[in-house]
């Protein structure tokens, strides 16, 4: 009897393997898609939450602005990204479309101003140096008005980034060396800047728009006197010798304005848009004025 025959004969004698069906098994594997769904749901929710409104900004020149690369920033915090740069139908403007990230307080509102930050080399100040290698970015100064989607960008960066402060107009015959960014001093301390210098509508005088920081706004009263401290004042006399007056090195190149306020308790604080004459030099007594004016502490 050969082996195979014997095997065949014995096969029926061999015990059968018991086949056991598992009746109940917890479908633990379905936990995997459940976890995946939770994670994915959370991620998608996060992503959709990050999408804020889309705004369009019209610029005269969008040189260096690139879709998908240029960010909109406020105080150095990225709050949006450019998604498209197109030419306007009049071929005279560039339309920049940007998607803002969602925030509790949106900057897509009336009064917001956008401008492109590029390296700037000015008298007495250099700014935007970081953008030399990174390319320009768009900066925004948030407004406070109702919601808005379409903006017109500024050509140059606004002189001052603070939103609150006192704006007054100084009227003079010649702008001299005053130009945007020239400092405004009170007792030699910088309390504001010149925003711009413009000819009046009838070209008779020059209007110098001045911004005084909110903290120092109380220093300007109705009787305040403003004078120009630009440049150097040479005074040579036979008995006095040579007298050189110079407010600061910066005012030498950038020009500057100083003001003083008389000690008059009746005088009211200046209001926004108030006009003051700008004198070419200070009278002796102005320099002696020292009224007591409370300045709020720095925040």
């Amino acid at each position, binding site marked *: 009897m050969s082996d195979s025959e014997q095997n065949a004969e014995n096969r029926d004698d061999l*015990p059968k*393997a018991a086949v056991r069906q598992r009746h109940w098994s917890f479908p633990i594997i379905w936990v995997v898609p459940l976890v995946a769904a939770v994670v994915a749901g959370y991620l998608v929710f996060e992503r959709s939450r990050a999408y804020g409104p889309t705004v369009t900004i019209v610029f005269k020149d969008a040189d260096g602005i690139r879709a998908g690369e240029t960010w909109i920033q406020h105080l150095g915090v990225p709050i949006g990204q450019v998604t498209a740069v197109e030419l306007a139908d009049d071929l005279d403007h560039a339309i920049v479309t940007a998607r803002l990230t969602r925030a509790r307080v949106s900057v897509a509102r009336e009064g917001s101003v956008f401008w492109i930050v590029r390296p700037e080399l000015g008298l007495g100040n250099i700014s935007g140096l970081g953008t030399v290698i990174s390319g320009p970015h768009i900066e925004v100064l948030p407004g406070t008005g109702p919601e808005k989607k379409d903006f017109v960008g500024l050509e140059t960066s606004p002189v001052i980034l603070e939103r609150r402060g006192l704006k007054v107009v100084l009227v003079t015959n010649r702008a001299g060396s005053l130009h945007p960014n020239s400092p405004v001093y009170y007792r030699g301390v910088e309390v504001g800047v010149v925003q711009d210098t413009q000819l009046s509508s009838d070209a008779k005088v020059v209007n110098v728009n001045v911004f005084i920081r909110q903290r120092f706004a109380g220093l300007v009263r109705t009787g305040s006197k403003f004078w120009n401290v630009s440049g150097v004042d040479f005074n040579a006399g036979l008995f006095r010798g040579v007298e050189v007056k110079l407010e600061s090195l910066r005012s030498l190149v950038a020009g500057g304005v100083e003001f003083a306020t008389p000690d008059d308790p009746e005088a009211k604080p200046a209001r926004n848009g108030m006009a003051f004459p700008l004198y070419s030099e200070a009278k002796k007594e102005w320099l002696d004025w020292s009224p007591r004016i409370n300045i709020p502490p720095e925040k």
Partner: protein
Amino acid sequence: MVAECSRCGTILARRGHDSLARTAALSLAALILYVPANIYPILRMYYYGAYTENTIWDGCVRLFQDEQYLVAVIVFFASIVIPFCKLLGLFYLTATAKLGSADRRRERTLIFKIIDAIGPWAMLDVFLLAILIALVRLQQLASVYPGPGLLPFASVVVLTILATLSFDPKLIWEPEKDE
């Protein structure tokens, strides 16, 4: 289904009766994670101070714009189309096996073999990124970082491979239910 020795209880053969459920569950998980994998950037790059984020789709578009058509098509297929097709294929296989269908058994076996063979290749992106991230670290000048989309993307690939592994191709050849 487990076959045990009737005398000593040793497991002689095991047929994962939950093979289909396993495959289906893992494929479903992969399909769900496929969404965040594609909407989140898988790559964040700082280049000379500029910052960009790239999803897989962004990468394809950018490659296409740079006239790297071949690479763009490869990336598009390897990273977007093929993972999705693999999942569709797995769903098809589990569904027909569950229904005990007898149609196109050869073709279905072929589909399974293909899915099984190209499994690890989908990981190419992840490997490539890992190398890129390790290499490009020039501090301030240029750096590459993984984006939040990389983890779901890698999970999709791994889950797909696991789903393929847990699928028992013998199930394609089960006799029809109504026989």
